[in-house]
């Protein structure tokens, strides 16, 4: 791939229930801000637009169709959609830019998860004959994974609580976070289990919201005269759908994507990891090969607020904005999809 400039990124607040805001009303404000930050007017000013969403979150087919409404797509635009987290929409944009068909792109993701019972809705991501009819929810599969790790001695409950305490603490500086504050590991461990071995705080909250990003070739970004971060590498991999056939304590797909994206080609100052459950952050940190010198999830990560279908792109945006602000020179971001980390994406970002 060629170097891609991330020029702007905006996400909405993570809220438990966006109420009377529909998709269009969720998307419009973040699109406006992301376009403004890039100094452009509308989707007409980029060569490609791609979004990520999931019809089942709010229970309506073709949710993405109304997502086109706020783009101002008259005259018509080059546009596509993935039924995935918008991090994969960014991936599609990277393909288009690398092949020379676009010099710039608008990428956005949105999700209104509040109308349904999200863990039960997500049970229908599973094998339609063997698992979905059991209504095996997404928290339960994560709990099985955590138990395996605890039984193996890979982690302790204290390790998990430490992840949560750090998330809550880091989230204090994140204006979009839903859950934040100072809480001690001991306090967390004193909480009862929710879906044992998971406690409620080990699980990400349900959030409504959207995010948007403008990317371009480095040449185009320079022409726009805006500061930018450089996307140096991005790759994604999937694993078997059979949990029994996977080693749930490892994430080989993350490891392979990290290798191919070039995570190890330089120091990793910051890593934004899409770990919807505390123990998964530990699996991912290991798969990404991160040491103690890397700051993990300075935003609080998705334990502080999880915009389904947008959280992956948000991780990338969080790192990009830190680079653009000059806080760091190099960082990585991760996105996941499916139960128990079945599918993973890794992106490497550097300063211009």
């Amino acid at each position: 791939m060629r170097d891609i400039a991330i020029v702007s990124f905006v996400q909405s607040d993570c809220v438990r229930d966006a109420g009377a805001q529909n998709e269009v009303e969720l998307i419009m404000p973040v699109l406006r801000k992301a376009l403004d930050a890039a100094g452009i007017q509308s989707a007409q000013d980029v060569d490609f637009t791609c979004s990520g969403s999931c019809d089942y979150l709010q229970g309506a087919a073709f949710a993405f169709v109304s997502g086109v409404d706020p783009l101002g797509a008259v005259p018509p635009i080059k546009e596509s959609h993935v039924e995935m987290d918008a991090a994969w929409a960014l991936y599609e944009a990277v393909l288009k830019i690398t092949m020379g068909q676009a010099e710039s792109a608008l990428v956005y993701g949105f999700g209104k998860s509040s109308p349904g019972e999200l863990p039960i809705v997500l049970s229908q991501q599973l094998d339609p004959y063997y698992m979905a009819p059991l209504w095996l929810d997404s928290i339960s599969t994560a709990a099985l994974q955590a138990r395996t790790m605890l039984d193996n001695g890979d982690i302790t409950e204290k390790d998990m609580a430490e992840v949560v305490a750090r998330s809550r603490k880091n989230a204090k500086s994140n204006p979009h976070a839903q859950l934040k504050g100072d809480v001690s590991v001991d306090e967390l461990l004193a909480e009862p289990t929710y879906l044992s071995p998971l406690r409620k705080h080990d699980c990400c909250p349900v959030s409504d919201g959207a995010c948007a990003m403008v990317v371009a070739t480095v040449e185009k970004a320079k022409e726009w005269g805006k500061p930018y971060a450089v996307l140096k590498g991005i790759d994604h991999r999937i694993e078997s759908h059979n949990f029994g056939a996977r080693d749930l304590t490892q994430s080989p797909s993350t490891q392979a994507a990290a290798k191919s994206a070039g995570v190890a080609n330089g120091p990793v100052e910051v890593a934004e990891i899409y770990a919807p459950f505390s123990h998964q952050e530990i699996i991912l940190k290991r798969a990404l090969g991160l040491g103690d010198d890397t700051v993990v999830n300075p935003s609080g990560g998705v334990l502080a607020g999880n915009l389904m279908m947008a959280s992956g792109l948000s991780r990338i945006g969080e790192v990009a904005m830190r680079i653009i602000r000059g806080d760091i020179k190099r960082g990585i971001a991760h996105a996941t999809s499916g139960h128990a980390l079945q599918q993973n994406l890794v992106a490497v970002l550097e300063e211009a």
Partner: protein
Amino acid sequence: MSASAEVLSQAFTLGYTYTRSTGPVVGRFLTALRDRKIVGIKGSDGKVIVPPMEWDPVTAEALSDFVDLPDTGVVKSWAWVKHPRGKHPLDKPFAWAQIQFDGADIPMIHCVDAGDESAMKAGMRVKVRWAEETIGSINDIACFDPA
């Protein structure tokens, strides 16, 4: 309350009773369940997978070598559901578990009616509790009982 401030909310159910054709491999497993039996399949490396996968997860080869198995096995991992959700298979606290049938190498996920969390541990033996009526569904296994 002004008209513009009105919030319109309403519960609704999105659903359909889907008619799924099973294909030979899934069909064979569900047929066995209806007959209160467990059947697995040999993967490319000879490992026995339950429920039978249609294709090997590593080589992607089509699988067809079925193996009859007993309805007993061992818990590899588990999670305790203190507050079952409305759609869960059991309406009292239960465990989800990865259960490896005796003679199998790859565990499957189902639930265990253990009464209390303290009764659960990795390595415990369990046995299928069959549904009163079996129709050819994963729910023909009502749950597993500690054995």
